[in-house]
């Protein structure tokens, strides 16, 4: 295994880990989003979706464990790379002209990613914890998943942090999507422009898709009062 450790400790090896985990997370977001969108089909649809996941709990647990590992690797290597890169360039230029030669999303990966991480902690400590461990998911035989989620979305602070995090996630994905192709070495003159456009489209769909939910439920809660 010595070769593998040496590989992941090299500059390109670390990038490879970032690209591999990043591409897997991109796929996970797609699945997650499709699940979330059942919220639009009402209480019954969402509750039955979540309780279906409950039936296959052991499989979900294995997937969660793998997912946690992917997240940990992505975050750990991202931070290590950021520290190494800072060390390589500790002094910035007097005039910052970096926007002339590169995009904002590409330069801000650590910050957009960092904010999404803060959101992730908040997200897990509310929904994931509530669904799995709080014991409040069933009252008198009726599933409470939909109520738990929509209650949180009615909280203006929670909803705005959620929306903000999804905007940051959009920027993160906009760069990350095409970036993993480049890191794997899949940069082809013919396909790269299309991949970049697809990445931007995917980023917009994912961030709008997720962010639309708290916006929708927050605005409809205003009507309830």
């Amino acid at each position, binding site marked *: 295994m010595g*070769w593998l450790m040496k590989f992941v400790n090299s500059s*390109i090896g670390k990038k490879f880990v970032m690209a591999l985990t990043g591409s897997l997370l991109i796929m996970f977001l797609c699945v997650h989003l499709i699940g979330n969108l059942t919220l639009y089909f009402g209480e019954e649809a969402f509750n039955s979706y979540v309780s279906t996941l409950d039936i296959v709990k052991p499989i979900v647990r294995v997937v969660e464990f793998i997912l946690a590992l992917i997240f940990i690797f992505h975050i750990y290597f991202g931070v290590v790379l950021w520290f190494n890169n800072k*060390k*390589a*360039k500790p002094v*910035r230029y007097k005039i910052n002209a970096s926007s*002339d*030669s590169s995009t904002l999303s590409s330069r801000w990966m650590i910050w957009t990613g960092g904010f999404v991480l803060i959101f992730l902690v908040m997200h897990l400590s509310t929904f994931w914890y509530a669904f799995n461990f709080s014991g409040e998911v069933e009252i008198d035989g009726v599933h409470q998943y939909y109520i738990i989620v929509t209650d949180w979305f009615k909280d203006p602070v929670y909803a705005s942090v959620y929306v903000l995090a999804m905007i940051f996630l959009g920027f993160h994905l906009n760069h990350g999507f095409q970036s993993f192709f480049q890191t794997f070495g899949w940069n082809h003159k013919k396909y790269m422009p299309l991949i970049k456009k697809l990445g931007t489209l995917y980023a917009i769909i994912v961030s709008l898709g997720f962010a639309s939910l708290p916006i929708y439920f927050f605005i409809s809660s205003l009507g309830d009062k």
Partner: protein
Amino acid sequence: MNNENLNLALHIWRQESREAKGKFEEFIVTVSPDASILEMLDEINNRLEKEGKIPIAFESDCREGICGACGFVVNGRQHGPLPKTATCQLHMRNFKDGETIYLEPMRATPFPIIKDLIVDRSAFDKIQQSGAFISFNTGSAPDANAILVPKEAADASLDAAECIGCGACVAACINASAMLFVGAKVSQFALLPQGQLEKYERVQEMVAAMDEAGFGSCTNTYACEAECPKGISVINIAMMNRDFIVSKFRSKEVES
């Protein structure tokens, strides 16, 4: 064409030695729009020498944009604001009368400042020495057509070989990554049949030398490509990544 002289306020980085603390020094100059930025510095240096002051240290050689010796940061842009232009080819007509211009050395830990605008780029030499060659028996020149090279491969290889090793990619990168340079140097050989024999060893050696020198990693911002005076494509980085990853997985060595 406007031939009126330009009045400029220059802020130039002055640093006596590697260890010394540097600072910007202001020079108010009147310069012809036809002068290159290096000729403007020559004029300032003539004046400084007459006044018995220490001239501004900067590097240059061919002044034709083909050697890679010159290069500093002009208003935050390596080699100045023009695309695919080396510093020596940057003329003052690209600036406006009354403009303030900041001239700085390239900033990167593996490129320590020697004096004023000159940095030590020997890290690039070390990377080159680690693998940018083809092992070949010397002797009489081989027959030109003994090994056939497809036109496409020759073109792509020559595009990569256009790299003049000026360091602009490192200077422009937020991470001071040298991957465009190393990518070009790896690919120019890997693309040719003669270079393919040692393709995987070469990429491993050169990436190891790059990491050893302390360059950052690539975030794929592609600022290097935008600032490269020779327009080297980031496809060379992708090719290097691919070769490096493949080389690590296919190599039979368990411990290396």
